[in-house]
């Protein structure tokens, strides 16, 4: 695991601060302008990514962004289920699941809904990046498992899934890095952690194919003054660009290491 990590700091494994739901909202920025975990407002969490995490899969990837840990495996292209209608382009089948120990409260009632929503959003984020016409009549399955939910879960799932697809050798137009952001008062906090997500005024998720300059998935919630929207969007796109480089270099490293 240490190979790909060489250039990126592995996050410290301090115990997660107690995220009890009661209590007063903490102030998300210190007077000096640093965040709860010591980052600057526009600084991303330390990221670690690795492909080939699952042996049985055609391709797989593991990603760790701060406290958020995600594993994605890709199977296929393989024969579509019999029940499905004929399709002359390939199918992308996505599934996102939370591990039952991934959240502080075990198996929350809302988790099933969230899984369904994430599944739909992951599918939309990826489908225009995958060259579906290259595997007609067949299905590629993308199974994502959130091992530890630590904020920005969906964004990490999307980035990790596109790495896994690349690892599986599925033809894509571009990688799809995704970044989430939280807005609090007049500040925007890039790559928000769980606490920032919980107490923020609003949030945004952007997934983009950076070399094609195309946004594949975007959602916003909460109150956004109009000037903040474009600033936040630009910030996310810049972060996506940097994340894309990281993902690319990680993929290259794995290939080089595998060839030796």
């Amino acid at each position, binding site marked *: 695991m240490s190979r790909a990590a060489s250039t990126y700091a592995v996050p410290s494994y301090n115990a997660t601060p107690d995220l009890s*739901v*009661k*209590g007063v*909202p903490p102030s998300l920025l210190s007077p000096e302008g640093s965040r709860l975990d010591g980052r600057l407002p526009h600084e991303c969490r330390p990221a670690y990514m690795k492909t080939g995490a699952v042996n049985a899969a055609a391709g797989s990837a593991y990603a760790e962004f701060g406290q958020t840990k995600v594993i994605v495996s890709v199977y296929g292209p393989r024969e579509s289920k019999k029940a499905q209608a004929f399709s002359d382009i390939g199918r992308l089948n996505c599934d996102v699941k939370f591990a039952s120990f991934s959240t502080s409260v075990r198996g929350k009632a809302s988790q099933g*809904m969230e899984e*369904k*929503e994430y599944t*739909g959003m992951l599918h*939309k984020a990826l*489908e*225009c*990046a995958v060259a579906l016409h290259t595997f007609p009549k067949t299905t590629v399955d993308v199974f994502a498992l959130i091992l530890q939910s630590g904020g920005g879960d969906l964004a990490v799932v999307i980035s990790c899934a596109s790495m896994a697809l690349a690892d599986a050798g599925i033809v894509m137009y571009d990688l799809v890095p995704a970044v989430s952001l939280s*807005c609090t008062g007049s500040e925007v906090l890039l790559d928000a952690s769980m606490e920032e*997500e*919980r*107490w*923020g*005024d*609003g*949030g945004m998720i952007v997934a*983009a*194919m950076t070399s*094609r*300059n*195309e*946004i*594949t*998935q*975007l*959602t*916003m*919630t*909460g*109150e*956004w*003054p*109009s000037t903040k*929207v*474009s600033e936040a*969007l*630009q910030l996310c*796109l810049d972060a996506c660009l940097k994340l894309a480089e990281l993902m690319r270099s990680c993929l290259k490293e794995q290939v080089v290491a595998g060839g030796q």
Partner: protein
Amino acid sequence: MVALSAAEVRFIQGGIAHDLRSDGRGRYHFRPFSIQSGVIPQANGSGRCKLGATDVIASVKAELGRPPAGRPNHGSLVISVECSPTAAPEFEGRGGEDLSLELQRALERSLLGGPNGAGAAIDLSSLHLLEGKVCWVLYIDTLVLSSDGNLLDALSIAIKAALSNTGIPKVEVLASTSADEDPELDVDNEESSPLDISQVPITITLTKVGRHYIVDATAEEESQMTAAVSVAVNRKGIVSGLTKRGGIGLDPSILADMISVARHVSQTLIPTVDAEIAASESRAAGS
């Protein structure tokens, strides 16, 4: 599913390119709509919106519940969307479920505000009754009766009409309850107070067909879309939620244009909606 011939597809796309759509509208014109208030007597408030052949109902029920975790001084909103198979055959089984969930999440994103409740459609602290114990929970249930495109915008209009029609019963918290006991409440259903709906946003969906984007797409136009962006905007022009739909990517500059067009359209649409709601309420009161 809408079945179109190649000629019809060309006609629709050509019309949009020339800013003259099949039904005579320009790209940024809404279909005429009508609003009916107070259609469900059992609910605390209700509204029905007909937008062209799209027909949706929203009802608001106020129930007493527990404040959300971590926010003892707030009430909460719960939104659900039902696409019944009576509206369209493709809503049967999973098809309806997926669309319902997509619409519901988009509405939640625009109406519930951020994680701490900022930017919510209704000031959530106004729904609070007794700290940490009791608050109002507004259940906003919506039903699609007939679908001819642009469901999300129609739903947001119906919800606004329903909220403006909603009366919250007067509640008196009887004193002399100790800290651990459930408090005693006296609910007076005769007297009710209206909600402040000045912050309720309207969703504007911009549908991209070919190189152009249009508002209020019909089902035929939606079948030709490559991507769509739904922007929730309130009366002050503040964006309170955004959802991208459709599977094709968008250029960031086009996206920024779409947001500003949505805000622009909303500034003429929202007064029309408000006037229409006021008119339907005076009709309902008069009858």
